[in-house]
């Protein structure tokens, strides 16, 4: 099976502080991979490196077979990103925000309109296309950010704490939708979270703590008969000094 995402020997420093310490993992194409870690584990740093917001101190990143560091433009066009922080323009409408994002991906005219329509329809946001983002609630804004990340039909979708601050029902809806994207569209999804209830037993699970990968396997293989919550807490405790 080919790799959707491959990280090898990745390290990153903030000054003298090591945020990521020689981490390696791969996610097969068409796989949902949860990246679980407490706050400060290095998840956001990893996402910043995967999106080339900055360049790693050492290591390699391959996305759908393309090397991000050697061929950033082509590689970035293969990923869709939902950041932890809101990145929408509140003064523009839903449609204007999406048109802007589409143009940044090189889409315009009919192709952009069609893709925006598809993305909004899939997320049940078609009716709200003309509304200003400022008037949307947190759940709708998040859905919109996902729609935006899918506009250019990426092969890999990166979501960094995409459900932070949302109610349980909306969180569940968004998590289910991300799983559907994997099953129906064959997308590779990397889902960073610190909430154990967002991970399903059959998901690939990477547990990150203090910048190192503690576990990387199918969730149910990691947990065995225990709950993920208990397994996670024990792992973090045993590696905290």
């Amino acid at each position, binding site marked *: 099976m080919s790799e959707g995402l491959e990280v090898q020997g990745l390290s*990153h420093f903030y000054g003298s502080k090591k945020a990521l310490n020689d981490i390696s993992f791969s996610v097969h194409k068409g796989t949902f991979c949860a990246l679980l870690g407490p706050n400060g584990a290095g998840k956001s740093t990893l996402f910043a490196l995967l*999106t*080339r*917001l*900055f360049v790693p101190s050492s290591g390699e990143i391959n996305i759908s077979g393309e090397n991000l560091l050697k061929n950033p*433009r082509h590689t970035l066009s293969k990923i869709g990103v939902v950041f932890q*922080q809101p990145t929408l323009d509140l003064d523009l409408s839903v449609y204007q925000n999406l048109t802007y994002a589409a143009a940044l991906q090189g889409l315009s005219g009919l192709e952009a309109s069609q893709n925006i329509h598809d993305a909004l329809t899939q997320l049940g946001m078609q009716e709200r296309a003309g509304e200003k983002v400022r008037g949307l609630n947190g759940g709708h804004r998040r859905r919109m950010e996902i729609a935006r990340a899918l506009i250019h039909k990426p092969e890999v979708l990166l979501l960094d704490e995409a459900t932070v601050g949302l109610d349980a029902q909306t969180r569940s809806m968004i998590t289910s939708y991300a799983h559907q994207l994997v099953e129906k569209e064959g997308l590779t999804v990397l889902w960073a979270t610190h909430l154990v209830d967002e991970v399903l037993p059959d998901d690939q699970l990477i547990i990150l703590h203090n910048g190192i990968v503690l576990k990387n396997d199918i969730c149910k293989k990691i947990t065995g008969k225990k709950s993920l919550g208990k397994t996670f807490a024990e792992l973090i405790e045993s590696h905290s000094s």
Partner: protein
Amino acid sequence: MKHTITSTWAIIKREALRFVSQRGRFIASLVRPLVWLIVFAAGFRAALGLSITPPYETYITYEVYIVPGLCGMVQLFNGMQSSLSLVYDREMGSMRLLLTSPIPRWWLLFSKLLAGTLVSIIQVYCFLTLAAIAGITFPVYGYLLALPVLLLNGLMLGALGLFLSATIKQLENFAGVMNFVIFPMFFLSTALYPLWKMAEASVLLRDICAWNPFSHAVEMLRFALYGQFNSLTFVVVLLSLAVFFLASVLGYDPVRSGLARKAK
């Protein structure tokens, strides 16, 4: 190529939409120079005598003298305000959308710069219209020849702001830098007084004004408004643009960028 043009157009359109939706910003951009023109210039007209210096061929009123400087002020404030929005965008996250798109980063920054400059040109022409209503007019061809100069000046001042936004990590710090950049740049220039007048007060001040790129931006516009081209000012502004823009590109380079320190 099509991709980069599409993205540039989108960035310009977004900036225009934001400008239209922020009426307060537009009004403030006009009120500021108008207050200077109506209140400040009225007071100084009596106190300050102006001799005939190029490009003027006759005696002029002080209001006529400061209009190019106030146009520069509009662009200086707009350049800094655009940069302020970049710091805000970066703190709030929306800058990440731009920086993670598959377009060369220097081109994205240039597009952002161009978008802000076009908005500032609209502001300047609105101000010039109000000045004309107040009786301060220039030759018709002057208004046309001012356009490329305003484009170059806007890019240079915007690039300075862009460079500052790349080096400033927090919005609070940026507000402080605005005070240390905008006011010295404006007051230590030929926007309000000609160089010879400054030399009467202090030769050192005159020299500082003569080195200030903003002085050259103002003088280039002053000459253009009378249909004249001043090659020295053009070269200085062009070089300043190149230096500031290069520094901005390096500042936003993911290898060197301080963005890394703000990742959390």
